[in-house]
């Protein structure tokens, strides 16, 4: 838990795709060192929110500030350098590069902007951090799914972001991998990282999140501690359907 200063401040965020309003007047904030879960049924707009924060999409209206800096309509590379790093719902590694080069990408171009030996050793320490010790020379395409997710996480961390966005990073893992994954994210949080995670795995949400945002049809449905929101009748109805 944290009562630190506000790191991410989102006000009235709206995104429409043609007629479809994927995110509708959403406001919330994230404090320093906080882990905030974004949950909600499929299609409720969670990924779109991350895409708006990271600059993959431009908002239709509303504003996003990071440490007081307006990043609302900035290009993704600018936002990344300001200190937002992310993973993707469908894992995105750089298939033609080695594990080490994948992670270096974050170190070289992220907030730290390291180069050569410094970048390489920084990448190496993160590769070990996420549990890929002996695999840094392999091409990423030869890795298992969870290892590719680890690469993606290490790449995001390598930029030394102020805030880390994880889009269903734990999805698709088997039960033992899931435990490993949860402890990994927990250790990042203990290190003092600020994290926003979109997640469906309830165990993970209960273990990891200080606070949860519940979305439904692009709008904020509930906000509060994991236990409180998960027992909120409105949230249960949204997950189970209206009838």
């Amino acid at each position, binding site marked *: 838990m944290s009562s630190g200063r506000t790191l991410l401040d989102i006000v009235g965020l709206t995104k429409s795709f043609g007629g479809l309003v994927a995110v509708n007047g959403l406001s919330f904030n994230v404090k320093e060192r906080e882990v905030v879960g974004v949950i909600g049924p499929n299609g409720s707009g969670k990924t779109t929110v991350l895409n708006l924060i990271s*600059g993959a999409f431009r908002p239709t209206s509303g504003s996003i500030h990071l440490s007081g800096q307006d990043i609302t309509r900035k290009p993704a590379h600018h936002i*990344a350098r300001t200190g937002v*790093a992310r993973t993707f719902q469908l894992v*995105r590694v750089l298939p033609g590069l080695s594990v080490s*080069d994948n992670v270096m990408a974050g170190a*070289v*171009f992220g907030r730290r902007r390291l180069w050569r030996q410094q970048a390489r050793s920084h990448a190496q320490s993160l590769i070990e951090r996420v549990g890929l010790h002996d695999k840094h020379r392999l091409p990423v395409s030869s890795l298992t799914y969870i290892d590719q997710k680890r690469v993606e996480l290490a790449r995001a961390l390598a930029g030394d972001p102020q805030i880390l966005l994880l889009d269903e990073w734990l999805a698709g893992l088997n039960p033992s991998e899931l435990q490993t994954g949860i402890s990994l994210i927990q250790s990042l949080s203990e290190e003092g990282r600020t994290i926003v995670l979109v997640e469906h795995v309830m165990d993970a949400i209960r273990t990891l999140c200080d606070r949860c945002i519940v979305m439904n049809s692009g709008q904020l449905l509930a906000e509060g501690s994991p236990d409180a929101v998960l027992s909120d009748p409105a949230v249960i109805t949204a997950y189970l359907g209206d009838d």
Partner: protein
Amino acid sequence: MTPEDTRNILIGIVCVAIAACVPLVFNGYWLSVALTAMMYIALSTSWALFSGPTHYISLASGAFFGIGGYLVATGMSDYNLSFWLMMAVSAVVATVFAGLIGMATLRLSGVYFVIFTLGLAEMIRNMVSWLQNNVLGSRGLYVLTDFTEAHIYWMLLTVSVAVFILGALIARSRLGFAMRIIGNDETVARHVGINTARAKVLLFMTTGFFAAIVGAIIAPRYSYIEPNLVFSPELSFLVVIMALLGGMHRLWGPLLGVIPFTLIWEAISIWIPNFTTLFLGLAFLTIVYFLPNGVVGLLEKLRGGATP
């Protein structure tokens, strides 16, 4: 520098020394074939600096090449300006022009980019032809210099060496690393903090720069310049085919495409001149079906090395 770097530099120096001796050993026909090959080495290698990592196929080489040739011809013929000055001017014009095109089009997806560059080259050719016939008067443009074929060849060799050195430097730079990431996944590239538009435009500008210089150097070879000769769509296609044939994932890949292609092309032009277009088609099919990674890919496979 790694031992491998040292070895590559030595190999490079030997190759350049051998290439520099060509005009001393050959003249007439064979020198002219070597000159054509050297021209395509500079063009295809610089083209691949941009298209290799981005996979954007640019058919604008002919436009930049034409800017080089045409500006040299106009400047020397109509304004009595020096060859060297016009070469520099054309390089600047083509580089700026490439920058503008890049900014306007590199946000387009690959297919639209190909079409756009082809259309653009054709548009410039027609525009310049029209201007020359209707506004400037259709006097011919003469490029009269004291350059021999050997001189032109050596100038092209110098440009090729510059392209290789620049290519090697880029590959070791942040820009080169950025381009490899962009080639793998542009969305990831933007999200790790790479200004992808800037990186792509910069490299596109280098291809424009070198194509214009080559066009300028070649102009004295033709002596008489007209727009249809220098703004040549065929040249754009040949540059692409030779680079693909050689393989674009190595700096020296296009070189291995240019040499066999030029020799075969010359032979066909002499013995069965009507078959050049057919040969172009066959070369394309060969690349697509048998040499997806070019000659370089094939060599690496034969040596048992991994192809990317």
